[in-house]
Every structure is written in structure tokens, then in C-alpha cells.
């Protein structure tokens, strides 16, 4: 393909806009043409902007023809009145803002005003609808109506609902009350699953890092825009920042996120922005576009994954304070950082980087202590998603998966390890991801059925001792659960 295929790139935004041959040509061209790649990304961003919901504004009261005292008017009369009035209103408004027209047609502009009040008296709703909202603009939710009052212990899970015909899926955030009540859909939105090969999709958010510290809000990247979801109401608002893989600082003040550099698609910048919006500040290039950063408890440091290892970054300066050689394992869920020592549980791996391990560190500068060794080489057990027990400072929960080259990961065994003794035990269930309840008495996990989907098929609550187990929510068809978090209110 010699020329830049701008038109084809535009058509490629449509699911069936191109033939297979044309799509292959575009894909090949994008690999070698940064300009076209940037244009494709621009179109993707623009589609996201165009998809963002207009703030929901109450329409003014319906103009009822019966105000004229003749009941429902015939079509011709109603249309004539509507056209005359709308035209008059339009001219009046335009006259108010255009001196030339105002001078040319003063009588028309003046006579239009009484007509507007004759049709329908102004109401508070109509008046307020034209004013900018003092609150950040809400975005209508595609589904879900929030949780209402937030009390007690809740689990939150992300559900992935793929489309049968389009390269997209619906992501649903569900709230599961643990004391009483039934699971509730909090919020839902559409995500892409295919398209531009180079694109990175933040379409299965790692929920734990994305809650505000009080658990009342969630930050998501929706169509590339950082979006705050209020769990009580299910309403959302845009932060005004383009980014993916956000994580909310534990003091609530900031949100860290990743953003691809516009002219360097392979580079990803780690940035922070105030949790109420504003201008983001770039801390540096991290190189891996698909893992959110983990905040230190005091909000001064971030732990971010890169292709060359895992870095501890000072938020104030962007300086790398420490670099671990091991590449973070387990997708987004490679580390948890808490205030109690040992503070960090960090999973790392690499075919050519030594053994797969789960390590503990008392703090960001302390030496790493191996808790679990998954073996060496490419045929090994991977370690993912370590989570400290909130009620027992030495216990950590994690998942091991068997990695064999050329096959999908399998196994997904849930384990609990005591960092004080180094003893680990297999819980005896297959789990894609798991968390503790806030009293540490139970484990909730996404049950991983072999060869069903890439993620979990059910949400199960199991007592710490394993004596009781109950299913809280089950996915149907190709639906699956991809992330779980525990919140106490």
C-alpha cells in the first residue's frame, strides 16, 4: 500500500466497514506508518468522545396545544404554529446575539417574545436546564441504578458480557451484599475487544485498585476517558482526562493512570492527576501498557511494572527509587502494598529471569524475602494476585497458574501462605481471582472452570476453614467474572 489509506482507516472504525483484505492492508500499513497509526488512534479517541453521553437534562414541559383552547389541533395547524413559533424564537435569539439582524428586523424580534410565553410558560426545570451544573457533569449509565445506601460488607465483581456479533463487550460492575440482600448491578458500559491490533484495551479493570478509599466511588477508564462512578447512585462523571488502567491513591487525593504517547505508540507514560480532575502530571515512561500502578499507603510512592522489571517511583519527583529485576506477573494483579509490615507482597516472573516468586518486603527499601517459589523457566507455576488478610497480618492469599508454552494458562489454584512461617497451603479450589472478606473469616473467589472462559464462571464465598461455601452469583453462557474486590462500609 503506497499511499496513506486515510479513508480506509476511517472505514475501519466500522465493524464491517472493510473487507478482510482491506483490513489486513490497513493493519500492515499502520505497523509501518506512525502518522497513520496516530490518525487511527485519534479516530478511536474521537469515537470515544462522541460516545460519551450528554448530561441528562430534563426537557421543558411538553407544549400542549390545548392551551389554545381548541383541544388537539389538526396536523396542519399544529405544524404551522410550531414552524412559525420556532422560526420566530430562532430569529429572536439570533437577533439578540447578532446586532446586524437585530437592527434589520427589530419588530420581528420584539414580536416573537410574547409568542414564546403564549405557548408554554417557563418553568424552573426549563430555566435550570440551560445553566451549567455546579456539580461535575453526570453521564447517564447504560445500565444499573446504583446501590442506594452503602452499609455493611460488600463484594464487588466485574462481569464480562461479550457480544456475539461485534468486537465489543459489556462490562458490568455488580455489588454483592454479604449480610443480606441480592446482588445488584451498579454500573455497565461497553468496551472494545478487537480492532486496531496495536490498541491496548482496558476492558477488564482490576477493581481493587480502582476504589476510592471510602469505597463509595470507583474510577474506570471508559472509552479511554477516566470516569468516576458513584456507587450509591450509579451515576458517573468524566474526570476530563484521557487514560487507562487507573488506580486511586489510598489517601484519596490522586489517581495514577497510564496513557499511550500520541506519537510513540509503543511508549506508555505513568501520570497522576488530582481525584477531582485538573491537569495531569507525567512521572515517566513505564513501557508496559496494561498494568495499573500500586500506591504506597501514604500516597508518596508508586510501584509500576515495566518490561525491564518493577520500579518504585517517587510521586513528587518521578524519580525511580528502586528497580526489581523481576517482571511483574499475573496481569494487573501482581502486588499489594499495605501499611502493616511486611508492607509489600510482590509476584514476579520471567522465562529468562530466574524463578517465579512471591516475595515480601517490609517496606519499599527493605530486602525482598521469598515467600513462595513457583519454579524456573517457561514451564512453571505463575503467581498472581497476592492479597494480605486484613485480620491476620501474616497471611497472604494468591493464585498459582501453570504456564506451559503454547497452551493457555491452566490450574488456577488458590493458596494461602503464612509469611511468618513460610508455610503455604492449597485451599483446594480453582480460582481466577480471590479476596478476603474484611473480617478475614472468609475468602471470596471467582471460580475458574476449565476451558469455559478466560475468567471465572461464578462468585463463591467460602469460610476460611473451608467448612462452608455458597455461590453468590453465577455467569451464564459466555459471560464471565474477571475481578473481585471487598469493601466494608
Amino acid at each position: 500500500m503506497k499511499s496513506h489509506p486515510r479513508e480506509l482507516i476511517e472505514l475501519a472504525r466500522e465493524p464491517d466497514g472493510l473487507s478482510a483484505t482491506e483490513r489486513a492492508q490497513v493493519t500492515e500499513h499502520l505497523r509501518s506508518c506512525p502518522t497513520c497509526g496516530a490518525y487511527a488512534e485519534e479516530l478511536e479517541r474521537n469515537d470515544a468522545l462522541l460516545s460519551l453521553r450528554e448530561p441528562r437534562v430534563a426537557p421543558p414541559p411538553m407544549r400542549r396545544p390545548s392551551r389554545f383552547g381548541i383541544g388537539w389541533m389538526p396536523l396542519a395547524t399544529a405544524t404551522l404554529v410550531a414552524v412559525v413559533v420556532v422560526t420566530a424564537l430562532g430569529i429572536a435569539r439570533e437577533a439578540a446575539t447578532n446586532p446586524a439582524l437585530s437592527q434589520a428586523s427589530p419588530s420581528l424580534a420584539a414580536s416573537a417574545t410574547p409568542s414564546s410565553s403564549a405557548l408554554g410558560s417557563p418553568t424552573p426545570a426549563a430555566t435550570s436546564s440551560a445553566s451549567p451544573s455546579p456539580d461535575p457533569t453526570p453521564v447517564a449509565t447504560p445500565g444499573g441504578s446504583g446501590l442506594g445506601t452503602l452499609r455493611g460488607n460488600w463484594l464487588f465483581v466485574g462481569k464480562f458480557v461479550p457480544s456475539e456479533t461485534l468486537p465489543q463487550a459489556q462490562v458490568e460492575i455488580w455489588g454483592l451484599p454479604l449480610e443480606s440482600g441480592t446482588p445488584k448491578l451498579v454500573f455497565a458500559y461497553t468496551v472494545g475487544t478487537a480492532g486496531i491490533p496495536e490498541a491496548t484495551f482496558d476492558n477488564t479493570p482490576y477493581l481493587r485498585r480502582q476504589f476510592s478509599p471510602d469505597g463509595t466511588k470507583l474510577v474506570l477508564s471508559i472509552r479511554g476517558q477516566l470516569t468516576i462512578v458513584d456507587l450509591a447512585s450509579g451515576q458517573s462523571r468524566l474526570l476530563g482526562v484521557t487514560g487507562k488502567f487507573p488506580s486511586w491513591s489510598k489517601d484519596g487525593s490522586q489517581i495514577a493512570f497510564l496513557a499511550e504517547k500520541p506519537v510513540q505508540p509503543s511508549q506508555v507514560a505513568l501520570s497522576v492527576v488530582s481525584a477531582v480532575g485538573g491537569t495531569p502530571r507525567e512521572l515517566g515512561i513505564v513501557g508496559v501498557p496494561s498494568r495499573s500502578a500500586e500506591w504506597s499507603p501514604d500516597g508518596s510512592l508508586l510501584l509500576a511494572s515495566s518490561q525491564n522489571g518493577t520500579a518504585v517511583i517517587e510521586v513528587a519527583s518521578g524519580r525511580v527509587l528502586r528497580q526489581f529485576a523481576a517482571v511483574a506477573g499475573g496481569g494487573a494483579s501482581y502486588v499489594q502494598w499495605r501499611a502493616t509490615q511486611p508492607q509489600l507482597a510482590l509476584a514476579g516472573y520471567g522465562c529468562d529471569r530466574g524463578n517465579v516468586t512471591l516475595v515480601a518486603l517490609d517496606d519499599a527499601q527493605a530486602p525482598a524475602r521469598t515467600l513462595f517459589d513457583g519454579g524456573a523457566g517457561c514451564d512453571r507455576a505463575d503467581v498472581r494476585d497476592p492479597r494480605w488478610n486484613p485480620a491476620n497480618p501474616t497471611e497472604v492469599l494468591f493464585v498459582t497458574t501453570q504456564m506451559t508454552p503454547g497452551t493457555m494458562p491452566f490450574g488456577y489454584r488458590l493458596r494461602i501462605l503464612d509469611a511468618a512461617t513460610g508455610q503455604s497451603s492449597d485451599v483446594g479450589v480453582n480460582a481466577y481471582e480471590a479476596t478476603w472478606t474484611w473480617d478475614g473469616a472468609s475468602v471470596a473467589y471467582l471460580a475458574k472452570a476449565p476451558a469455559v472462559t478466560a475468567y471465572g464462571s461464578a462468585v463463591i464465598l467460602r469460610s476460611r476453614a473451608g467448612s462452608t461455601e455458597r455461590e453468590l452469583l453465577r455467569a451464564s453462557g459466555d459471560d464471565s467474572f474477571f475481578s473481585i474486590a471487598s469493601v466494608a462500609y
Partner: protein
Amino acid sequence: MNSRKAQKTIATTAASESDWGALYEAHGPDLLAFLRRATGDLSLAEDLLHDSFARAIGSSTGAPDPARPWLFRIAANVAISHHRRRRLFAFVSLSADQAGSLDAYDTEAEHVRAALRSIPRDQAVTLTLALHEGFTRREIAEMLQTNEETIKSRLARGRQNFAAAYRRIDRGLAG
């Protein structure tokens, strides 16, 4: 009067004021959001919403079930035909949306509206129906009484024009 015409008459007369009120309540907010996005002007959108319902009430068929696609069809055509009339005036008024200070989202949303205002209305309406409202190309083609290829082409040109307009506005060169 043949039987088909009689049915239409019954459908029309059966649509009471309360029926239209319910439809307005159910679909008015979505239609207003659509019209605001497609025209970039809230006040104009409110006018066009009323214009759309005036046409709906005056239709010879009454509201079908479901009414949503039908109402969007009317609103989309009202928006496009209004633009054709409006071009005779050859100037663009400032919208109420542009007044006052705007927070970060308002600024971005206003840039989107401004960019849509500056591209051909049929493209703005088509982009909005597809991306804001989620209608398929086939549904849009039926609404705008054209074919899917035209809609596909309109979406491609609309994306191109929107990209150029948004770039200009976002960089402070227009709007």
C-alpha cells in the same frame, strides 16, 4: 374510506393527550440529549424536541410500538431539515452552552458539540445516531430513508471532518 385508512384514523384518535404525555416523559430526555449533541445547542434542541413532537402528534399513523426508533427518526429528520432552512441565514449563533465558566468535562463536551456544529448536519446527525445512541447502520438508513452504503460513507466522512474540526477547536484555533 378504505379499511387501512380507517385503521390509521383510529390509531390517531386513540392517541390521547395522556399517551403523548407519557411518550414525552419516557423519551423526551433521550431525544433532547440526542438533539443537543447533534445540533450543539440546548435551546435549539428544546425547540426541535417540541417540533418533533408536534410532527409526531400530527402524524397520520400514530405512534408505533416501540415508539423510540420512530421518534428518533422524526427528530433526526427535523434536525437535518432545520439545518437546511437555517443555512439561509448564513451565520451561527452562540449557544447558551457556551456561556459561563466550564469545568473540565464541560469544556470537552462543548468542544465535541462545537466540532459537530461545524460539520455538515447530516454527518453530525448520523455520527450521533451511531455513536451516541447506538443505532445500527441499517436502523439509521431506515430512519433517514437512505441506504446503508450512504450511511457508511457518511460516517467515514463525518469522522474525517469531526477529527479536523475537533483538532482545530481543541488547539484553540477555532470555536
